[in-house]
């Protein structure tokens, strides 16, 4: 009886703070787990039997560079729309889900590219279809500003779409190896591939640490405690990564590594790869030249 009374008269728990705290933990966990899932999901697409997946990564890299250069040099909205259409077609024939491909590009681009281009909408000289007068000031978007912004956003969207398409249809390992065709030093490619490989290991370690903390937190912890825990976790993870880097180096030495990086290239450029490369570069060049006629 006395227990129930004391419980009833006990001060109410600070619920909002607890909710906030769990939300922070769950959000961090979800973010890390999402990054891992996203990577696995991307690798799954790269293993599908699609058009781009069948093309040699070096040819694909050449096609990507050609198309991105065309998008950068093109000042015509329609030429850019044509390039975007090509990217959509390539995605369709490479079995990349349409909604995934479109959402991934268009959810972020208008916001980030829009912020960059926003001032130019108002400050580019020209006719203002919508204008407000504030004292001696005339505020409103100008027509050339709007057209310029649309072209800029389209250009960014095409470039990002192409980058997404390249990454989604090519395993990371192949993509990194294909950089050899651009004479990127072997040691740089090795470091990139090792970084990519170990990021996931440490992400998993971070997930484990967050889960352990979540399972043990039952009451309210102050912001100071949380910050202390985070800094401790960062230090712990760094210490682990340092120890592991020593072990990995030992494993490399144990397999004959002497500081000179050697890699194997199993890629084969076939007639189909050359044809895809030449056709894409021709279409990209066509899109740039076409602006004179549009």
């Amino acid at each position, binding site marked *: 009886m006395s227990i129930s009374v004391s419980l009833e008269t006990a001060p109410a728990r600070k619920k909002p703070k607890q909710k906030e705290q769990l939300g922070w933990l769950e959000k961090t966990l979800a973010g890390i787990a999402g990054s891992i899932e996203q990577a696995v999901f991307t690798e799954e697409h790269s293993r599908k039997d699609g058009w781009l997946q069948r093309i040699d990564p070096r040819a694909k890299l050449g096609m990507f560079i050609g198309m991105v250069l065309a998008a950068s040099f093109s000042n015509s909205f329609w030429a850019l729309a044509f390039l975007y259409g090509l990217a959509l077609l390539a995605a369709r024939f490479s079995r990349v889900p349409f909604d995934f491909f479109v959402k991934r590009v268009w959810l972020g681009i208008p916001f980030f590219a829009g912020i960059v281009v926003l001032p130019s909408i108002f400050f580019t000289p020209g006719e203002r279809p919508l204008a407000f007068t504030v004292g001696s000031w005339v505020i409103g978007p100008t027509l050339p500003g709007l057209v310029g912004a649309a072209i800029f956003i389209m250009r960014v969207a095409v470039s990002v779409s192409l980058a997404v398409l390249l990454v989604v249809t090519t395993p990371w*390992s192949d993509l990194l190896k294909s950089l050899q065709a651009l004479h990127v030093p072997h040691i740089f490619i090795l470091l990139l*591939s090792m970084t990519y490989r170990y990021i996931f290991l440490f992400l998993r370690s971070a997930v484990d640490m967050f889960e352990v903390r979540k399972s043990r937190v039952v009451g309210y912890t102050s912001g100071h405690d949380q910050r202390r825990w985070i800094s401790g976790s960062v230090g712990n993870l760094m210490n682990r990564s340092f120890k592991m880097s020593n*072990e990995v180096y030992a*494993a490399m030495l*144990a*397999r*004959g*590594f*002497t500081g000179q990086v050697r890699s194997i290239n199993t890629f084969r450029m076939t007639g189909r790869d050359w044809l895809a490369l030449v056709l894409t570069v021709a279409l990209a060049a066509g899109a740039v030249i076409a602006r004179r006629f549009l």
Partner: protein
Amino acid sequence: MGRDYSPAGAEPVFRLEGVRYLYNGRQVALDGINLTVGRGEQLALLGANGSGKSTLLKLLDGIFSPNAGRMQAMGRDVAAVAAGQDSFRFHREVGLVFQDPDVQLFSATVFDDVAFGPLQLGLSQAEVLRRCDEALQMMEISHLAKRAPFELSGGEKKRAAIASVLSLKPEVILLDEPTAALDPRTKWVLVNLIQKLGQDGKTIITATHELEIVPLIASRVIVLDENRQILADGPAQQVLNDTALLVKANLIHPELHYLGRSPSSLS
């Protein structure tokens, strides 16, 4: 200093005399190790956690250099190998499978990891591909060749790590806890593999504290105690039957190992 129980007659692959190794130059990791390993021997290295098994394997692989004592591997001074001298040729003959497969699998794909060793040896591309195919098939993981290590299960990672050493075709294979935390089927695959490699004449040293696999993979057992010294060195069956020795080395605990029997029955 421990006594050396090495078999007479076999051509020595490793010869250690009074070897001492200190972590960070201060903490004793191994002390007074006398050991000779003959060519073609299958040897199990037993010891509790922290008894120095992994350190001894790293010394044998020429990754660490002893702080005191003499150590020769295949006629070479291991201290010189650890300093980088002749290490390239040494690692053609001695392969180490690390305890943590995440350490061993540092490349972007399983294939790249398996190919890493042969590529460092400067072999032709055709030979590298042939060795990779062979090692992947031996470990039954050909279908995982293009997978990234983070996509693999624990057992698959272990198999890939072993394949990455088998592709070097070493004469001496050092295995650090190869069956730890594996399901029984994968464990059995590895036991079979070690037996097969042994039948092919390879020298195999397996560090483990899983006693049930020891009679299957080794004819000789070396026990390291918690003072990081050799406590026993002898035929597998003889060492495994010495319960008092195993208890002393913290390899078994009376209450855990002999369920249903009173600890006093051990004496």
